[in-house]
């Protein structure tokens, strides 16, 4: 059983942190937080060509994390593979000792750095969960038997502040019905909204990892300018708190805010764990964990 599953099922607070697979083959930077934090971190998330931009394969990265002594949480996106490739990569992940999976639809290709690439989406995230659940039960998506059953711990994404929320809740229910055992939220800064979202999560067996994102300078200026268009919001109090901050000071403020969020989520048990996202500033992760007293 994976450490992530063991932690969540035991009711302990899980700490996952996202790594950034390189846009190239220099993996040292990606692996540095693994060496530094593996004792304090439950699992390391490996995004799959995040934001539809080219990065080293998340599957290869997951194995490298494992070899470096960390536990990987592999993201697998429907954007770039048909069902044959998805199933093949899932089996490959199992063979490489990767159990934790976050199965996602994936950001659309035109939003990334290969806008002319063919978007695949042969399966959606619900169907991919069904595929993984089927593999775990020993059969592929066509119902044919496998030699050896993979042991997966299946995760899916939820958007607590989706507007409108009802279609997202319906999709969340489908993801759970399709086999999701834990959910990872979109970034959350607004804990009140997280609290009200939690009321929709009635099954205690489904674990929730709340994403805490390190606030970026351009996000702050966008929110201040009123041009905000994201699936999460910044509360007014936070904007007031950070108003007038010099860009140099913002970094330490972002660390402080992220640390505070992690601590509140843990103390108030707003999630079964957190998923820390630094988007290229993984050097800040240690400071955030320290701030959060983890």
């Amino acid at each position, binding site marked *: 059983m994976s450490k992530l599953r063991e932690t969540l099922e035991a009711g302990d607070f899980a700490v996952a942190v996202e790594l950034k697979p390189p846009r190239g083959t220099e993996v040292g930077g990606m692996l540095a937080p693994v060496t530094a934090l593996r004792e304090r971190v439950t699992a390391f998330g490996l995004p799959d060509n995040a934001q539809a931009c080219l990065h080293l394969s998340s599957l290869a990265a997951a194995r490298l994390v494992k070899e470096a002594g960390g536990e990987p949480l592999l993201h697998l996106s*429907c*954007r770039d593979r048909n*069902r044959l490739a998805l199933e093949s990569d899932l089996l490959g992940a199992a063979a490489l000792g990767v159990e934790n999976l976050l199965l*996602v*639809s*994936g*950001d*659309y290709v*035109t*939003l990334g750095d290969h806008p002319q690439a063919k*978007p695949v*989406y*042969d*399966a*959606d*995230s*619900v*169907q991919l969960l*069904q595929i993984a659940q089927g593999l775990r039960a020993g059969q592929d*998506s066509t119902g044919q038997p496998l030699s050896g059953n993979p042991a997966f711990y299946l995760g899916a*994404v*939820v*958007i607590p502040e*989706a*507007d*409108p929320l*009802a*279609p*997202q809740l*319906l*999709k969340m*229910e*489908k993801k759970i*019905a*399709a086999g999701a055992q834990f959910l990872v939220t*979109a970034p959350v800064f607004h804990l009140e909204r997280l609290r009200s979202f939690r009321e929709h999560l009635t099954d205690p067996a489904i674990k929730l990892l709340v994403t805490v994102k390190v606030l970026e300078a351009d996000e702050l200026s966008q929110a201040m300018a009123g041009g905000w*268009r*994201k*699936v999460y919001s910044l509360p007014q109090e936070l904007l007031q708190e950070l108003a007038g901050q010099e860009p140099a000071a913002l970094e330490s403020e972002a660390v402080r805010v992220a640390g505070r969020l992690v601590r509140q989520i843990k103390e108030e048990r707003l999630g079964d764990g957190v998923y820390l996202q630094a988007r290229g500033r993984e050097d800040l992760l240690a400071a955030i964990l320290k701030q959060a007293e983890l």
Partner: protein
Amino acid sequence: MIIAERKPFAEIKAMVAPYKKILIVGCGTCVAVCLAGGEKEVGLLASQLKLALGLEDKHLEIGEITVERQCDLEFLRPLCDFVTDYEAIVSLACGAGVQFLKELCYMKPIFPGVNTTFIGVNNDAGYYTERCRACHHCYLGLTGGVCPVTMCPKRLLNGPCGGMVGGRCEVDPEKDCAWCQIYHNLEREGRLEILRQILPMHPHDRTTTPGTVIHPGYKRRYGVHE
């Protein structure tokens, strides 16, 4: 109907550059409605070519004809004799029409004058939007009359993606999220319950190209067995 856009003039001019006598063939149905390849557009292209080549002291003889439908043999057959006088053909029909015309006039080089874009609707003069991807497996009865295969860029069959903001699409914020529309339509119809079923992956084996459809009433004629 089929929507098309005329190719850039420079591209068409370059395609016909080796010839002295060409025939431009318009199509009087879909591409005429979307102002890309009907009789008027045939005349416009012919004039543009003559003017542009005239400025370069070149001469190009251009024949113009528009048939009712280039995707229908009934209208194409009369063209066979007509094309013999020309060195090459520019067809302003959709891709189907261009290929059908080539099959009949197989000795002549043929060039497309339009880019075929999608199956769509005529919202207003000059304003067309896509509605159908001819996917062989229509979901509209399950999705409140909104096609997830066409109207959702990711073709998701089980609900919105995580990028929807304020009911707008992640890919193009100017557009409504198809899945929010599907949800609202089914809610209005009192049929939200059907959204609880998980739709399986699309049967892509049916979409292997090129597709063929034979009407059941004609299977015997074409030697197709049930």
